[in-house]
């Protein structure tokens, strides 16, 4: 090797280093211009950051919020949700009626609606969808595949599992522009349930052509060709492409029957880390993300971003496991209820706008009782009750989860600390048992009997007390540790009420009973919110998070 080559090499090294330095410095100008053009020329693209990749695009198989968010743009059900509320409203059905026995529902269908593949939406298509769900078998009956169908319709045409053969669906009849769905027994929440995206109407032609119920090459029905590349509905947006792990693109549906989308293109990109979502919004790379951490709300609104609260359709409660002898005593449970200063818990640990809870269901839900037994914050009364029960100075186990943030429970560690202080103030000792949310904590609460007080809750998937009282108190569970046949029967009766009005009354009675039995203490209905760039207008939040993006606009 000659000295010349050395010199050449040195030159290359220097050039490389200079190039790198130039690249780093010059990106300032480049970045600046690109952002300016994105804002100035109205690109017509709404970029939303999802916390995880949608599991599937066939809404019938999914219940996770990221899949549902996309499905709400592509698909519509017979029943929709009145924007800004949790109320059922006409969707692909313009009206409906039911017989007095609650066994038959007739839907008048919207005319001149087409699926995005050009095939007509009609009565036959509706029945095709209902029959499709009812005929699922084998692996399609697994809890993680057809979870919501099982929750609402309770069973299939045939099943190896006897518990899944007693469904409520009986049949579907098409008569011109109307469809009649008959049930084997009444189910009071059918109308709100049909607004769930899992029961959206899909194109029979596309379902058949792309073998929607076939596991396909991946061996899983959620990953087959239909569900990953050809979801076909009647909604304001069409599926365009899905680059796994990176982005999912939707286009405005040119033949949409309703309000035409004002934004041509939607890109959903995946940013799992909460801080990374916040930073991407701050730097203008995305236009919005959901479930803003309570700690970030002020900073975002201060910097001109929109933080839109949703009316909460959820409940955070303090459970009291009655398998624990101490908590089996109603006097101790009442003492704990009087020891809690819910207002303080709310203002110290939950998002702004959150209201303390009095029942296990949130106020907008059908079945919320007019008045129930309340337990005001009264430490003196709490102490007296503990004395009566001989429980002063006793140690109570308190389980709480770590490393999780749920819409109904944004910061469980903080909530735990607030409650512990209040319990200690009335003379109870607290044995704190923190555990990782999943699976350790869930397993402790749901499958093991050695938990005491615990924090848990739920978010409603429809405007029905079924998704709260029905799920929490429908039967004996390890979680609550008590057996009360009368209560379980009342819940079952409310579930199978003949109509919404009757169901509301029945659940209101259950809700009243519950606040006398006091299996736990409803703490609050935390307000979830989503953040948007200042350039987006027209976003109407929904308590069910069922927002349809055809109302969105990009300001110039």
């Amino acid at each position, binding site marked *: 090797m000659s000295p010349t080559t050395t010199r050449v090499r040195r030159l290359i090294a220097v050039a490389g280093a200079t190039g790198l330095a130039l690249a780093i410095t010059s990106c300032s100008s480049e*970045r600046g211009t690109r952002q300016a053009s994105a804002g100035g020329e109205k690109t017509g693209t709404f970029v939303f950051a999802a916390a995880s990749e949608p599991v*599937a695009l066939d809404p019938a198989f999914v219940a996770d919020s990221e899949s549902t968010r996309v499905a709400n743009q592509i698909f519509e059900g017979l029943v929709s949700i009145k924007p800004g509320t949790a109320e059922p409203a006409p969707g692909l059905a313009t009206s409906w009626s039911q017989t007095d026995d609650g066994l038959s529902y007739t839907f008048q269908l919207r005319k001149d609606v087409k699926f995005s593949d050009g095939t007509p939406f009609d009565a036959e298509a509706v029945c095709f969808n209902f029959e499709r769900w009812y005929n699922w078998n084998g692996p399609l009956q697994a809890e993680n595949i057809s979870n919501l169908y099982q929750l609402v319709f309770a069973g299939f045409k045939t099943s190896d599992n006897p518990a899944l053969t007693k469904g409520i669906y009986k049949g579907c009849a098409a008569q011109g522009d109307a469809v009649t769905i008959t049930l084997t027994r009444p189910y009071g929440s059918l109308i709100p349930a049909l607004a769930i995206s899992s029961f959206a109407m899909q194109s029979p032609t596309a379902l058949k052509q792309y073998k929607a119920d076939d596991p396909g090459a*991946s061996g899983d029905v959620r990953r087959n060709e239909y569900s990953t590349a050809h979801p076909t509905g009647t909604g304001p947006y069409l599926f365009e492409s899905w680059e796994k792990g990176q982005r999912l693109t939707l286009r405005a549906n040119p033949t949409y029957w309703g309000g035409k989308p004002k934004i041509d293109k939607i890109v959903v990109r995946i940013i799992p880390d909460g*801080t990374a*979502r916040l930073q991407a919004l701050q730097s203008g790379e995305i236009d919005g993300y959901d479930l803003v951490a309570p700690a970030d709300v002020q900073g975002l609104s201060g910097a001109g971003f929109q933080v839109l609260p949703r009316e909460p359709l959820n409940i955070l409660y303090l459970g009291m496991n009655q398998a624990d002898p101490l908590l089996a005593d109603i006097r101790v449970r009442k003492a704990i209820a009087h020891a809690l200063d819910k207002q303080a818990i709310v203002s110290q640990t939950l998002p702004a706008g959150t209201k303390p809870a009095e029942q296990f269901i949130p106020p907008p839900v059908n079945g919320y009782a007019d008045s129930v037994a309340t337990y005001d914050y009264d430490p003196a009364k709490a102490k007296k009750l503990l004395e009566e029960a001989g429980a002063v100075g006793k140690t109570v186990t308190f389980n709480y989860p770590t490393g999780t943030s749920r819409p109904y429970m944004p910061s469980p560690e903080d909530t735990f600390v607030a409650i512990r202080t209040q319990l200690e103030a009335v003379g109870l000792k607290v044995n704190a048992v923190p555990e990782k949310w999943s699976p350790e904590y869930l397993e402790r609460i749901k499958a093991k009997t050695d938990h005491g007080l615990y924090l848990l809750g739920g978010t409603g998937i429809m405007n029905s007390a079924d998704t709260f009282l029905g799920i929490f108190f429908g039967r004996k569970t390890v979680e609550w540790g008590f057996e009360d046949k009368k209560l379980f029967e009342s819940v079952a009766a409310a579930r199978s009420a003949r109509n919404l009005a009757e169901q509301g009354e029945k659940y209101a009675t259950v809700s009243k009973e519950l606040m006398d039995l006091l299996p736990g203490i409803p703490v609050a209905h935390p307000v979830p919110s989503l953040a948007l760039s200042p350039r987006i207008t027209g976003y109407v939040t929904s308590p069910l998070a069922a927002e349809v993006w055809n109302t969105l606009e990009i300001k110039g």
Partner: protein
Amino acid sequence: MIAFVARRLALVVPVLFGLSLLLFVWLRLLPGDPARALLGERATQEGIDRVNHLYGFDRSLPEQFLLFLERLARGDLGSSIRTGQSVVGSFFERFPATVELAVAGLGLAIVVGIPLGYFAARRKGGPLDHLSVGASLLGVVVPVFFLAYLLKYVFAIRLGWLPTAGRQDVRLDATHPTGLYVLDGVLTGEWDAAWDALLHLILPAMALGAIPLAIIVRITRASVLEVMNEDFVRTARAKGLTRAVIRRRHVMRNALLPVSTTIGLQAGALLAGAVLTETVFALNGVGEFLFTAVNHLDYPVLQGFVLFIAVIYAVVNLLVDVSYAVIDPRARQR
């Protein structure tokens, strides 16, 4: 050389088998039930039992392991219990992002680290030396995720020079034949896309490259100092060789041996660092997917991905050994 590579490759097989077995047992000793993690807070016991049955988690451990091996022999690693995606498919979908990141991070560390270490050694005790030693100490001490957030805050949010997350602006409709976005842009001639992907790589590469960079600087510096004091360097000088030739042929060639070993060992640390870097920068690579899988006790994904990563680690170290043999002829005979 071929025999050497073949021998090394043959050694990899028992290592992978042992690793699979260990991992298999260890995963199942973790507390918790994947079906419960999957179905969440409102799952019923029947639902959990059915899912466990569906995925075979209710069978005995040896039975499950045999089934796993049998599938593995067919090249089938199963599919994710969370998303239903096939493990092999999702690995290769995400692998390019990780490769791009690792190459950029390690490349940065090598390109900057070796010259820096070399010049620090040549001017030992000088300001450059003190600066590089101090900075490399900092590089090792600062946790990757902290550095990542700090870089993002300074360069992306305050200064607005670089993007905060992702691999490319999603508004660009770029085509991706290979999945390596920078390369894709170059291949397809979409220069704006290549440039954009490169900009997205800078901060993650800096965050990921910080630790290897610091280590490479220190090892290079120490190694060069040591070699410069060797007798053969004095002899070479006495022979009247020019300083450039001594540096290239005698000092660097010998000093690089420990450095190349270090780089090979860093490949493992790099993959571990990629888990954090990919999560913070939303790169949707292998590491980030692994992170989610741990949280959901997604056995098939964890098992498959760790196996893949072990293979990569083994191959990288094999390459390092080969490079060793190239740099140092003595290694070939061993």
